């Protein structure tokens, strides 16, 4: 137990901050994922074949390639790509992007592919009559989407989005390979310096279980809220 003490003698406070870091990365990645999903869902549902192709390419590639490989691509390729863009504007110094941004971007793009599939499924399962009724009532496209389709879609999407959240939360453990100090990395450091890997990795597992448990409880509440009237 003294290994978990707060302060200089134990790893309690370090692991606490690492847990906050995991939560921060997960939320950022999830939001980046939503942003990607908002771009690619319309592409997948579009009537144009080329746009379909772009949308399908994104979801197929990301869901078919290991997360770790995507993270390596960002970790090793991220600053190179930024430097290339900067060189076009005449800036040739070395640019290092911070691990938090690279990590959240990599996990965000992965989570975005799953969110896209969830949104696509949810929109497709809304009754066609709803679109037609909105049109007949003379509601403009913007109103149709935000006031009629989105609220109905969210109700259908929330159970599946909670799966995406779980996947995203667990995927953040992989960013530890880039050196960002989240739960996994902190446990690795602690295990290395105390030579007690069994304890620290088991504790990391408990922290992840706690995070998934708490987030499930919160999402269930959200689900109830959005299912009012059904």
């Amino acid at each position, binding site marked *: 137990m003294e290994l978990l003490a707060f302060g200089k003698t134990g790893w309690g406070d370090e692991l606490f901050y690492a847990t906050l870091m995991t939560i921060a990365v997960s939320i950022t990645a999830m939001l980046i994922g939503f942003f990607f999903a908002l771009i690619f869902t319309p592409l997948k549902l579009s009537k144009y074949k080329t746009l379909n192709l772009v949308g399908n390419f994104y979801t197929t590639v990301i*869901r078919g390639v290991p997360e*770790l490989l995507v993270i390596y691509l960002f970790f090793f390729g991220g600053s190179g790509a930024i430097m290339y863009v900067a060189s076009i504007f005449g800036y040739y110094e070395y640019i290092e992007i911070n691990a938090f941004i690279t990590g959240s971007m990599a996990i965000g793009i992965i989570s975005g592919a799953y969110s896209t599939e969830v949104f696509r499924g949810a929109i497709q399962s809304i009754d066609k009559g709803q679109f037609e009724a909105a049109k007949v009532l003379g509601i403009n496209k913007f109103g149709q989407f935000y006031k009629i389709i989105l609220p109905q879609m969210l109700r259908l999407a929330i159970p599946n989005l909670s799966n995406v959240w779980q996947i995203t939360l*667990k995927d953040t*453990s992989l960013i530890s390979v880039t050196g960002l100090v989240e739960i*996994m990395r902190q446990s690795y450091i602690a*295990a290395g310096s105390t030579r007690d*890997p069994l304890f620290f990795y088991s504790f990391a597992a408990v922290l992840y279980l706690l995070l998934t448990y708490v987030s499930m409880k919160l999402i269930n509440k959200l689900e109830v809220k959005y299912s009012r009237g059904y």
Partner: protein
Amino acid sequence: MDFDLMITSLPKLLGATVVTLKLLSASLFFGLFLGLFFAILRLNKNIFINKFAYGYSYIFRGTPLLVQIFIIYFGLGQIEYLRTTFLWLILKEPYWCAIIAFTLNTGAYTSEILRSAFQTIKPGIIEAGKSLGISNKIIFYKIQIPIAIRQSLPAYGNEIILMMKGTSLASTVTLMDLTGVAKYIISTTFKPIEVFIVAGGIYLFMTFIIHNLIKFLEKKYSFQ
């Protein structure tokens, strides 16, 4: 684009794919039995057995695979007693540690898939078997299991693909699988995009094959 690098790294990456496939097939093989075992426990009416099986699947589905590998590879070696038993012959090898972790992980997901498949079998089918005087054991092995396997094919196909992606984590415990070799080439040449295209292409090809194989099986064993 460095096409020469893409061509020269292809044979190395294909060689590493063999390791990936070995890890995948071994863990799927053991995982299927483990999953079936725990799915049967989940259907047991005894609350302790039931809760035990639920706890297993909850823990392995609620924690990242990386943690599971690290506990088995780095953690178990710390227990002095284990080092004296024959188990140490297995646990000191990263290859077997990875397979154990993958097996336990895929077993948890498979048990959930099979459990829900067992629960969706219509009671009428079992009753029909009983009224024909078939013993409970034969009903289970000859009627329930084949139907459950057919029902769970689509979900199990997804699990195979997820597990294939999961095997990439073997590279974190020093194994040179497809991702491990890809990382090695990237870190020595600093050409991430080229290597990503080749390695990613190999993974996508495997996903494609698995996807179509499952589709074929689904069609072959469909009820119609």
